[in-house]
């Protein structure tokens, strides 16, 4: 069988709210960029938190409302669509912010503003994801909404790997089991792997594996300096570059790159 060879990673982070998705996703993206990969990050969580862990100065950077226009009467398709002439690549090139290590950042989830703004933003997100070409100049790292309600929304066909961030605690592992169950359905995403977070020893990582049925591809230790960076709204990779947790995320990047090459 000829396997599709693609050198870019497309990774989407899921998991229970508060499990550490954004902190790990941001650190992952920066670590990937430091290896010389152009990286695009997408925050599609309506409770956006990725900007902090990337080290961007602003935390809330919604896209302009005129990115999308309403469907004309008599036309079919989604009610809101990207402004005519604007391709998905254009959106990235014109509207993404560039943070440390050259990481590009697009925020689609929107906390403030009334619900119509949120809806427009989500439509724009779906279309950008749908229309991004297979051959892309960037590796893509997504930070998705927490929980198990439409956990893979919009990303199902796009991400090559979903990484479920799971703490070795009952509620977090229950969410992991639910994600694994959804992933097992025929129309579910292709690959869901677990990242055990805030583990205290090796046994913690194996508990996550046993209780969720997901293969643990990385284990990030409980780390006070990593937590402190988050408390200060700073990127862990800037504030605690030598911490065990940042090192573990760097290993996770290496692991995924290695698996991609196999």
């Amino acid at each position, binding site marked *: 069988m000829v396997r599709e060879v693609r050198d870019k990673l497309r990774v989407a982070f899921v998991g*229970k*709210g*508060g*499990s550490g998705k954004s902190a790990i996703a941001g650190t992952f993206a920066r670590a990937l960029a430091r290896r010389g990969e152009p990286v695009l990050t997408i925050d599609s969580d309506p*409770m956006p938190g990725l900007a902090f862990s990337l080290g961007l100065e602003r935390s809330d950077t919604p896209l302009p409302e005129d990115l999308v226009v309403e469907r004309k009467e008599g036309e079919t398709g989604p009610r809101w669509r990207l402004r005519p002439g604007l391709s998905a690549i254009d959106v990235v090139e014109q509207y993404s912010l560039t943070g440390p290590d050259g990481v590009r950042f697009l925020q689609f989830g929107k906390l403030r503003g009334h619900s119509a703004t949120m809806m427009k933003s989500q439509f724009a997100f779906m279309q950008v994801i749908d229309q991004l070409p297979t051959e892309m100049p960037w590796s893509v790292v997504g930070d998705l909404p*927490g*929980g*198990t*309600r*439409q*956990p*893979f*929304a*919009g*990303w*199902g*066909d796009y991400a090559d790997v979903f990484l479920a961030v799971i703490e070795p605690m*009952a*509620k977090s592992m*229950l*969410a992991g089991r*639910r994600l694994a169950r*959804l*992933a097992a*359905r025929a*129309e*579910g*995403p292709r690959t869901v792997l677990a990242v055990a977070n805030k583990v205290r020893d090796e046994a913690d990582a194996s508990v996550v594996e046993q209780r969720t049925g997901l293969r643990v591809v990385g284990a990030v230790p409980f780390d006070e300096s990593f937590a402190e960076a988050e408390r200060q709204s700073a990127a862990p990779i800037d504030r605690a570059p030598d911490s065990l947790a940042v090192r573990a995320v760097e290993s996770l990047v290496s692991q995924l790159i290695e698996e991609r090459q196999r």
Partner: protein
Amino acid sequence: MKIAVVGKGGSGKTTTSAIVSRTLGRMGYPVVALDCDSNPNLGISLGVGDTETERLVSMRQALDEGNEEHAPGWDELLDRFGSDAPDGVRLAVVTRIENPEPG
């Protein structure tokens, strides 16, 4: 008294709700704990265990899938979709679990 607990994911809503419920129960108040989360796990914090928590969720799901009838009233809802937690707390999963779309 009706108390609703809200907040960001992982901030401790469920744990807080469970402790408030059981404390009120221990003080002798009759308490009903309603899990309104789309990822319902209040049962774990209340102490009814994984299996019972998942059983309540599947009961609720069966309703959405048309395999269960809606309860005609409050008492029957608590009876059919609820479970006894320690300290006399009655737990019910009332969230609308929309069939999560994988993509």
